């Protein structure tokens, strides 16, 4: 087969997904998913290598999702996996990608503004960009985001048209949302109910409306639902002008509890593998790492390992502020370049405790691991010593 990778091929991919008139919008930023070798495998690696040899280059600022290894700790995973992950990143760099290796590009590596038209894959980042920042991006697939990065424009469909932004389902949450896990469960429950519809969300209690918690809400919504945006009352730019659907669906703590049961089980009393607490899905911001340190202040040590995943940029900042040293003394490890779908967890028999609904979903369904959902504070209360 001749590798006919050229702009025409990528334009054809965008065209094939547009019904009716083919129209485009210029984009100024792209973010790619499908970076992890555990995800795209040899098929993806070969394709990206072909692409890097094709002469095509990204036309806009392009960042990439995490891989499955931390490039500073090669001994932890299969050397073959490590090497292939490196090849994937090298190919993408050759095409012009920024080696961001994060699912939170909006924090540093690919900062976007309100009203900016972009083509992002990675559902949690898409939802954050649209719902919190007020940028415009569809939930691009790995390949359509890649095509848009190469072409510098994307299909004028979905969210890029006024009609495609309207909320079609109205949720009201009544009661307390106490921690990041509650927000995550709410997002997951909403996604199950909404399907591909864009929701409008009213929270009757906004006491805990922190960015870190909203991140959990959006990431888990992106896991179970198809829409690229949630209109969050009081948060999303322009929320007051949008016309709300008439019928309201009320969500309460019973709904959240029943969702939790599907992703969380009791820890076995005698687990075969090790127990690991995993957080940083989506990647932690520096504020979240500061908060984590604060929460560990009165704890001498943790009785199980805790792994925190973040971007390179935040990792370096945490080093600079002396946070990672403090954390490692207490048994917390800081990872970069990878997400929770980390190489050494695949085919392991580890039991995972996590505060991220999205992480629980994928570690359970994709890595077939036992998962337990606990908020960070719950975790510290159970496993903190001294």
């Amino acid at each position, binding site marked *: 087969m001749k590798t006919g990778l050229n702009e025409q091929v990528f334009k054809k991919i965008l065209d094939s997904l547009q019904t009716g008139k083919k129209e485009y919008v210029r984009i100024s930023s792209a973010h790619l998913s499908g970076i992890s070798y555990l*995800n795209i495998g040899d098929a993806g690696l070969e394709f990206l290598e072909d692409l890097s040899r094709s002469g095509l280059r990204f036309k806009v600022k392009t960042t990439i999702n995490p891989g499955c290894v931390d490039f500073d700790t090669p001994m932890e995973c299969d050397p073959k996996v490590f090497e292939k992950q490196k090849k994937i990143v090298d190919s993408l760099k050759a095409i012009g990608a920024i080696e961001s290796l994060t699912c939170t590009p909006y924090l540093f590596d690919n900062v976007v503004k309100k009203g900016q038209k972009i083509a992002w894959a990675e559902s949690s980042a898409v939802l954050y960009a649209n719902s919190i920042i007020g940028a415009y991006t569809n939930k691009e*697939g790995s390949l359509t985001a890649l095509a848009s990065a190469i072409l510098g424009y994307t299909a004028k469909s979905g969210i890029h048209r006024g009609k495609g932004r309207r909320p079609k389902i109205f949720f009201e949450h009544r009661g307390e949302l106490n921690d990041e896990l509650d927000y995550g469960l709410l997002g997951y429950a909403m996604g199950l109910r909404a399907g591909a519809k864009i929701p409008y969300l009213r929270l009757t209690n906004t006491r805990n409306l922190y960015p870190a918690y909203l991140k959990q809400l959006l990431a888990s919504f992106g896991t179970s639902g198809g829409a690229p945006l949630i209109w969050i009352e009081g948060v999303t730019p322009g929320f007051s002008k949008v016309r709300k659907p008439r019928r309201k669906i009320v969500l309460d703590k019973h709904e959240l509890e029943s969702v939790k049961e599907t992703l969380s089980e009791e820890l076995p009393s005698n687990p075969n593998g090790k127990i690991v607490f995993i957080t940083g899905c989506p990647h932690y911001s520096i504020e979240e790492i500061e908060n984590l340190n604060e929460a560990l202040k009165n704890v001498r040590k943790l009785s199980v390992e805790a792994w925190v995943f973040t971007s390179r940029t935040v990792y370096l900042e945490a080093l600079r502020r002396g946070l990672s040293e403090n954390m490692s003394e207490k048994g917390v490890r800081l990872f970069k370049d990878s997400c929770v779908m980390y190489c050494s967890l695949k085919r392991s028999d580890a039991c995972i405790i996590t505060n991220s609904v999205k992480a629980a979903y994928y570690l359970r369904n994709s890595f077939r691991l036992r998962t337990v959902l606990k908020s960070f504070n719950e975790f510290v209360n159970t496993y903190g010593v001294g």
Partner: protein
Amino acid sequence: MFLRVKVVNEGVAKGPLLISSQPISFFGGVDLETGIVVEKNHPLEGKSVSKKILVLPSGKGSTVGSYVVYGLAKKGTAPSGIIMGKVDSIISAGAILAGIPLAIADIRKICSFFKDGEVIVLDAKRGRLYRETLKEYGLSPNIFFEASNTFSRYSGKV
């Protein structure tokens, strides 16, 4: 006699028809080397999509499926043509990358018109699907395409 199909990716392909009543996930569901469907309990489990005209309602599962379609084509084990019930962003995108002729059609119609395993021609240039009728005369593929196109054009009018 031919069936009209909507062209997504141009090209002409020939091969035995392989009809899947269920969507296929190429990532995880199809072996990257051989093109054999490995998804447990899938109607096509154990069958190879290689060099077939694959008919399926839609794609499913991971979007990495696009790269698998591309990878199969590089190894020569991809379907020679694909007909889907609707465009998806996984298989159709992969077929475009790989240069595999792809069309959209009413799957039920295909099932009532052709038999599974029958050698057919997908003309994703003119948007036609027809039986290979001239094979027994041992004509070269090029002559064959020309001849059957003429044939089908004529039949289409009638």
